[in-house]
């Protein structure tokens, strides 16, 4: 077994066991913290497909995270006020069903990723970083100045949405839902990286000219990866909104984009379990450093600097070594 596989198994086992033990000794806060990790890791898995496999440095994934969040917020707010979303040409009402909300979140963020991708992928390098950022900022300012869904104040949803057969207000059951989705996404991401599509995508990252010479269009591969990436991050956004029962424009802010990127890089770019390791480490640090001082972000910044300057390859890269070539 490769060292990275062992690290991954330990991570997965630890991630499931710790909240279970916490639940048994009645520490619901730890369970909620772990749920947060699961959701943020899911957002990171989305970004990792574009960033790690495709080499597309998107600084605007908050756009998809926020769209997922607002898909939940808009649908649920219409359901809780019993007002239809659309009356013409067909009447569409809101919903409190998680399954429907997830589908809508995935569809909306996938569509947005398609449009943003078609436009942004014409550029490369710094221009790509900046244009993805610009699209996220556009949505941020739009939600801030559009009063119909709370504007700057955001939207509160009073009761968590429902999932058939489960009580979603119980922390451990909501944790189970998020973790199940996390593992499905991990499975898909792992399959994707070894599939012909994934292999072609990774060779586009390493040498686009050569891939083009074999008759594959890099643009199509990148666009597909960008759309899949946006869909997964959008789903994470819907779950995040459900966790907090609140959405606000801050989900679209460039800090959110930066943080999702931090999860991926902290864990290890292009590593299957990198986003999970990164998100877990980030949340633990936030919690631990927050206990020392209210200025914990100062220490977090120093730590991040240390990771970038001295531990290249992130957490998984440091523990498991450079087995997987990352150019």
């Amino acid at each position: 077994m490769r060292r990275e596989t062992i690290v991954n198994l330990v991570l997965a086992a630890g991630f499931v066991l710790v909240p279970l033990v916490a639940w048994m000794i009645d520490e619901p806060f730890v369970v909620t913290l772990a749920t947060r990790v699961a959701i943020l890791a899911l957002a990171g898995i989305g970004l990792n497909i574009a960033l790690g496999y495709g080499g597309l440095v998107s600084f605007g994934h908050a756009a998809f995270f926020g769209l997922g969040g607002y898909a939940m917020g808009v649908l649920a707010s219409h359901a809780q006020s019993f007002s239809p979303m659309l009356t013409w040409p067909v009447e569409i009402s809101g919903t409190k069903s998680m399954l429907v909300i997830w589908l809508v979140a995935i569809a909306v963020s996938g569509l947005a990723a398609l449009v943003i991708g078609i436009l942004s992928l014409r550029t490369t390098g710094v221009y790509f970083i900046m244009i993805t950022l610009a699209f996220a900022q556009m949505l941020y300012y739009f939600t801030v100045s559009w009063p119909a869904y709370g504007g700057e104040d955001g939207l509160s949803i009073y009761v968590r949405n429902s999932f058939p057969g489960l009580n979603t207000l119980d922390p451990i059951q909501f944790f189970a839902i998020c973790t199940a989705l996390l593992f499905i996404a991990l499975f898909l991401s792992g399959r994707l990286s070894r599939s012909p599509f994934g292999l072609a995508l990774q060779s586009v990252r390493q040498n686009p000219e050569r891939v083009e010479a074999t008759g594959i269009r890099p643009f199509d591969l990148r666009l597909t990866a960008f759309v899949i990436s946006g869909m997964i991050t959008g789903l994470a956004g819907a779950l995040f909104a459900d966790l907090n029962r609140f959405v606000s424009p801050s989900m679209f802010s460039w800090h959110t984009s930066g943080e999702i990127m931090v999860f991926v890089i902290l864990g290890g770019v292009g590593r299957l379990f990198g986003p999970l390791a990164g998100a877990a480490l980030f949340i633990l640090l936030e919690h631990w450093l927050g206990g020392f001082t209210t200025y914990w972000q100062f220490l977090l910044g120093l730590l991040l600097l240390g990771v970038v300057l001295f531990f290249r390859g992130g957490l998984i890269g440091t523990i498991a070594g450079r087995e997987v070539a990352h150019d």
Partner: protein
Amino acid sequence: MTAILLIEQILNGLQLGVMLFLMAAGLTLIFGVMGLINLAHGSLYMVGAFACAAVAAATGSFWLGLVASLIAAAMAGVIVEMLVIRRLYDRDHLDQVLATFALILVFSEGTRWVFGSFPLYLDVPPLLAGPVSLPGGIEYPAYRFAIIVAGLLIAAGLFLLIARTRLGIRIRAGENDREMIAALGVDISLLYTLVFALGAALAGFAGAMVGAIQSVQVGMGEPVLILAFVVIVIGGIGSIRGALVGAILVGVTDTLGRVLLPILFGRFMEASQATTVGAALASMLIYILMAVVLLVRPRGLFGAA
């Protein structure tokens, strides 16, 4: 809407534009010469504003504060360059984005630690407190007018520096071929530190000038940073001329959009709805402008092909 009001708004746009130019010039120089994306540039802007406010409060003189802002931002730039940025030049953009993102956290929280969360206030110097009369009977705040003049003078100075001086020659040579000028005996790491300090000082100066018309607070650099990035992307990264054109384009578009769009929509919508739609669209306008420019010219208006 009268012509005078429109001219005032154009002047406001110009004032925003020249401030953005001071930020964007530093960013674009640092990218052009060292190939570095510096997200922490907004923090240097904040350092300038805080230094000016603190010194002005202690001595009662805005002008001493302005000098302090230049020195503090340049010093902060030199320290950051020597400790962190220097290690990032040969890394990929991803590492640069992350490391400078971390620097923002350090700067913002560090400033909050020292100065607290409450905004500081900086008064406009008495010399520039009143209005100034422009031809055509326009009364415009003297301070804002001074910002425009100072910004344009600095822009002219920067062009002269790059085009006419030995330092400028080295900077341009460094953009083209860093190995070659190192081989010719130029201390390249000193040159990089100097360019970074110059960019930092420009950002600090902009922060101090704007600090007197807005409040001086933690996080004030971030919106400006994003706007400055939009500017250099529109202008073409690495081009000072592009930064100037882009900055004025962004400043004027943003300011006029906020005024004109609600009026424009008012022509065919009811007033309250027009205000909402107009304001929402106006806040997105410069990003739309940037997207359109990149679609037509993927390397910006003055970028090298």
